[in-house]
């Protein structure tokens, strides 16, 4: 395999190996934090408030830093994601939610300029270790991207692609079954069941997004990463996807990026608030929305930032 990433070149041993240039925004943030007396920030070294740990951790990120060239996009973020938990990542545009999400199944490997350092473990196993093939990782940690990106193939083939390459179905009947149930769970089956052979790219934006969700759940991943899965959906489809998340959360862990506070409040148990690459606060959903610990979180959820 010629998977290359800077991670392969340097051991994933925390950020100690690199000394990135300090971005300009850093000082502004520290000042903003310093305004609040109970802030736990001290001289640029930043600590997440709330509880980033959880009881039954399954996917664990520790001291993760991401650089896009000279752009320090994720700054020393630690976050534990529990088994069968839905956690929402919120924060203003450009704060690094997508970047962090993509670290969790090594999608950043394919970005030339991205350098990821730190420790990320799935069920105790270092996902950036050389012995772990990203192919296996991504079959276990599925992702739904921010922009719908169906393959220019039929609807059926879109959903069947994952099961096919991983050999999840023994025969055609089983594959049919997987495709149908995945579409059903993504709330798309009703609309497309008569035209499974039509190209997936011919669907509407919202339908495409649900097709991508169906495609991801078809491989039955243990963790599902969703990057604004409902940004192109109407309220009905959104409700369906949220139902799906509830249902999936019975078995799987879900990390969802969302710009909708209501959605975060509805679906997640915990909420992580990102700001300019820092993980500012992690707390129970109730706490975050009713009584945020950090001033930046409060500003964001009350609409003063973002």
């Amino acid at each position, binding site marked *: 395999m010629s998977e290359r990433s800077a991670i392969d070149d340097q051991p994933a041993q925390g950020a100690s190996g690199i000394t990135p240039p300090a971005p300009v925004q850093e000082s502004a943030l520290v000042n903003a934090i310093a305004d609040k007396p109970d802030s736990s920030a001290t001289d640029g070294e930043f600590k997440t408030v709330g509880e980033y740990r959880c009881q039954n951790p399954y996917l664990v990120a520790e001291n993760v830093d991401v650089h896009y060239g000279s752009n320090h996009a994720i700054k020393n973020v630690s976050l534990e994601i529990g088994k069968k938990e839905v956690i929402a990542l919120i924060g203003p545009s450009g704060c690094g939610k997508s970047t962090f999400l993509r670290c969790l199944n090594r999608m950043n490997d394919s970005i030339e300029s991205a350098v990821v350092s730190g420790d990320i473990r799935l069920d105790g196993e270092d996902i950036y270790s050389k012995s772990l093939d990203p192919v*296996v990782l991504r079959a276990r940690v599925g992702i739904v991207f921010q922009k719908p990106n169906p393959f220019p193939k039929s609807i059926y083939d879109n959903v069947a692609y994952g099961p096919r390459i991983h050999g999840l179905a023994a025969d055609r009947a089983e594959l049919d079954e997987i495709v149908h149930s995945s579409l059903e769970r993504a709330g798309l089956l009703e609309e497309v069941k008569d035209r499974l052979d039509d190209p997936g790219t011919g669907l509407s934006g919202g339908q495409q997004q649900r097709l991508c969700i169906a495609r991801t759940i078809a491989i039955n991943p243990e963790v599902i990463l969703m990057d604004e899965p409902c940004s192109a959906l109407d309220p009905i489809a959104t409700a369906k996807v949220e139902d799906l998340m509830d249902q999936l959360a019975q078995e799987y862990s879900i990390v969802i990026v969302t710009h909708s506070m209501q959605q975060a409040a509805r679906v997640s148990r915990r909420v992580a608030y990102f700001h300019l690459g820092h993980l500012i606060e992690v707390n129970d959903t109730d706490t975050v929305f009713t009584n945020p610990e950090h001033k930046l979180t409060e500003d964001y959820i009350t609409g003063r930032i973002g």
Partner: protein
Amino acid sequence: MTDNSTKAKVEKGLARRRRNELIFRSAGMLATTVGVLFLGVFFFTLIQNGSSAFQQSFVLVDLEFSEDILAPDGELDLEYANFDAIPRNALRAKFPDVTSRSERRELNRLLSISAGYIARDMIEDDPELLGQTVQVWVPAASTVDMLLKGNIDREIVESLRPISDKQIAWVDELVSNERVRKQFNTALFTNGDSREPELAGIRGALMGSFYMLLVTVVLSLPIGAAAAIYLEELAPKNKWADLIEVNINNLAAVPSIVFGLLGLSIFVNWASLPRSAPLVGGLVLALLTLPVIIIASRAAIKAVPPSIREAALGLGASKMQVVFHHVLPLALPGMLTGTIIGMSRALGESAPLLMIGMVAFIVDVPQGLSDPATALPVQIYLWADSPERAFAERTSAAIIVLLGFLLLMNLTAVIIRKRMERKW
């Protein structure tokens, strides 16, 4: 009070914008017209000069397969029998008052030298013909053909034209007896090259070109595609990649004759491959088209949206699966188009072939990759060099055929692009 609204400002500039558009539009139209005009003149002269070559004059003769001539001692020897005498005698029978030796020779020259071979082939096919008389259309000599096509001026002084007054008179008599007609010139497509224009055909050159392009496509498509895939999808993007890119782009611009020299020194002199063979020509043309194919393929691969790759990677596809399941099918029309364009460039190349000896006078139609051969553009070059008027029209005809093939290939490229193009 001056109106300062956006509407007023926009309207103020509107006249200037319209004028610019008009100027640009007329300049574009002028340029297109000039281009079309040149093309029209080119095609017009080409067809005017070349179309007559697709017709060929034939003379009706009564071939008498006389046993006295063919088998004077009772035994017919296909190899040594005097078949040439058969059509000559047939012609002489039509003009009984021609007696002198020099006149008879002039009369003989009305028919193509192939007339004797035709007689022999007939006997070979059907030995029963011996002793019988058969009416056959045999090709006229190229001078007669030229006269009948009006390419020879009858008014000019006799010594300045390739056909004598007497010959003209005989031809006219044959014409009035309805013993001359024009037929489709099959020889042009079934024969190899010849010193006699009426026997010269492009079959040898066509087959040479065909074998050459076969070698070229078999080599350059897979190598070019593999190189493009490697460079786009797998190779690290560093200064080496940049260097390779610059070099490939440069190679595409290297004059083709340089590739010919390279082929001569490597394939012919060093690897001792046969000179003048389509194999070597194909190798050289493969070198020539590789950069074109690599550049076109890379562009096609680049045009595949990265989101498709991400989608597949996100589902756990390996890099190879991403390439073969998603990138390649989407890039294929572009890659094939590039290949066809490269091939049509290879089909039209002559300079590198001159260097590796594919410029020889070759009568036999090549039967394989290592037989000596020429190619269509080289054949055109050879014929264009011949002094006979009859070769001039064949040159144009060969150009028409070459252009026909180029048109066909480019049309295929367009159809592939239209058919297989997918939207995303």
